[in-house]
């Protein structure tokens, strides 16, 4: 767990390395100016101290070239910081294409996590080293924030919306997980551990029993397939066979990740948020060519069920509608 008196956090993700590089650059710049000023101030105060022969300051107005110089120089430095910072930021917000997706629900005062094969955790997250992991997060109540200092990543978790966060761990170990947005009494207790394991160990952990699990582990996508039938989604969202009347809803096979045209001409990318919105507020963005007849399922299913349906729709490939939920072979 580190020394009793750490002064710098471990860097346990690829992102952390980038952040720390930027940090040290800023630190060098800041230290330079701070030390320069902390030295110059007493030097000036002593060198020009009041004494006989120096009872009044020299009547000087200013110097425009100097003003320009010491406006331009800081401006240039902060622009470097801005560009570099933006670059790191974009890296944080652009996950790779292949990720190990974990669903997260924050609620007062715990984190509930679910792996693609259905394995659930509370306040703990096990991940394989070297694999890009992406979290899809929502809150059941107030705003929380998922924060892993060792990875240098943080993202607010909101009610009514998904937010995402991704990282690639580069070192095995156990790292703090904190809630970083004040959420009430147990805010400081709402956290736990992220455990980074060797891939083989992770596979073993993944296929093992979850302590205290109730019922068989079902992957979110498989759970979503059940819900898809249970809530009769398949009655409208299907591929119409030859001679059949056209389906009332768009066929969902292969639709995830594509861009669809809406009534009125706008387009939208079929991502997690759009699928969620379509379930809970179906008439908001109706696909062109279809009538706004889909009922809303708000109040009829909880966040976990919505997440499962999202996972299911994601898993639908063009040719068939069967879910596949094997763990990726690492890397990505």
């Amino acid at each position, binding site marked *: 767990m580190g020394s009793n008196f750490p002064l710098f956090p471990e860097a346990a993700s690829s992102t952390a390395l980038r952040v720390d590089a930027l940090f040290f650059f800023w630190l060098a710049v800041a230290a330079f100016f701070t030390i320069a000023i902390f030295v110059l101030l007493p030097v000036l105060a002593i060198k020009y101290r009041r004494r006989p022969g120096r009872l009044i300051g020299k009547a000087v107005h200013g110097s425009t070239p100097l003003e320009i110089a010491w406006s331009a120089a800081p401006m240039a430095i902060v622009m470097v910081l801005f560009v570099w910072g933006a670059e790191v930021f974009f890296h944080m917000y652009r996950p790779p294409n292949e990720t190990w997706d974990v669903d997260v629900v924050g609620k007062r005062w715990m984190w509930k996590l679910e792996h693609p094969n259905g394995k659930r955790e509370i306040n703990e997250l096990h991940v394989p080293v070297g694999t890009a992991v992406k979290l899809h997060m929502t809150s059941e109540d107030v705003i929380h924030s998922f924060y892993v200092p060792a990875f240098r990543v943080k993202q607010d978790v909101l009610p009514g919306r998904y937010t995402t966060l991704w990282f690639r761990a580069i070192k095995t170990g156990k790292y703090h997980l904190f809630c970083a947005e004040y959420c009430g009494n147990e805010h400081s207790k709402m956290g736990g551990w992220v455990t980074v394991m060797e891939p083989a160990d992770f596979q073993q952990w993944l296929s093992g029993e979850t302590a205290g699990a109730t019922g068989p582990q079902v992957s979110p996508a498989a759970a979503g397939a059940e819900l898809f039938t249970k809530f009769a989604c398949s009655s409208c969202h299907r591929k119409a066979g030859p001679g059949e009347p056209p389906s009332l809803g768009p066929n969902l096979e292969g639709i995830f990740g594509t861009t669809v045209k809406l009534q009125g001409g706008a387009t939208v990318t079929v991502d997690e948020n759009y699928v969620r919105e379509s379930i*809970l*507020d179906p*008439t*908001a963005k109706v696909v062109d060519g279809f009538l706004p007849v889909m009922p*809303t399922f*708000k*109040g009829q299913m909880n966040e976990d069920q919505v997440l499962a349906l999202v996972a299911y729709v994601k898993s639908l490939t063009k040719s068939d509608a069967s879910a596949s939920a094997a763990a990726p072979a690492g890397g990505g």
Partner: protein
Amino acid sequence: MADSASTSHGGAPPVAHQFATARQQREAANLGMWFFLVQEVLFFGGLFTVYAVYRFRFPEAWAEASRELDVKLGAINTAVLITSSLTMAMAVHGAQLGKRSQQMVSLLLTLALGATFLGIKAIEYHHKWVEHLMPAPGFQFHGASSGPEVGHARLFFACYFVMTGMHALHMVIGFGLLLWLLKNAAAGVYSGAYNTPVENVGLYWHFVDIVWIFLFPLLYLVHPR
């Protein structure tokens, strides 16, 4: 400036001790009122921002919700308020000329028109109350109490009530100011030499009018055609 019996009671206007001249005092009061109105623009601006966000997000629900408002009453109110700005301007004019009767008639008309406006608003609010359109638990829209369209419509009414309510509150404050002016006008306080309070209240009243001129189309005329 003398004008028979309806002029001010004469004499130099009172200049507060911190001012060097009456002109400085008047200019300071004017500038103060303008700065105050700028601040009021920002106050309502927050509400307009909230309005813009939700209207942009839920255009259809908001168009539907807007249909529940009575455009006729809103239009009448708009005309009433614009007319009250005219009568207010007449009051300022009367004060500048020191014409007591013009001041008092104009101020009374302004008050009456303002009261009409608030009365009509009260009727509209009452209708909304009866139709379960108050944005609180118990809200119903097109017969439904839940569902996304209901929530979005509720947001429309939340904006409607807060914006028109804030506006009405400012009108009530304006009422108080007008009554104060009326009292002073009756006593012949205002004249060409000293009419700053009337001018400043006039500015305030015109501002309240302008806010309504924005509110009316934004709230009542959302639905197409």
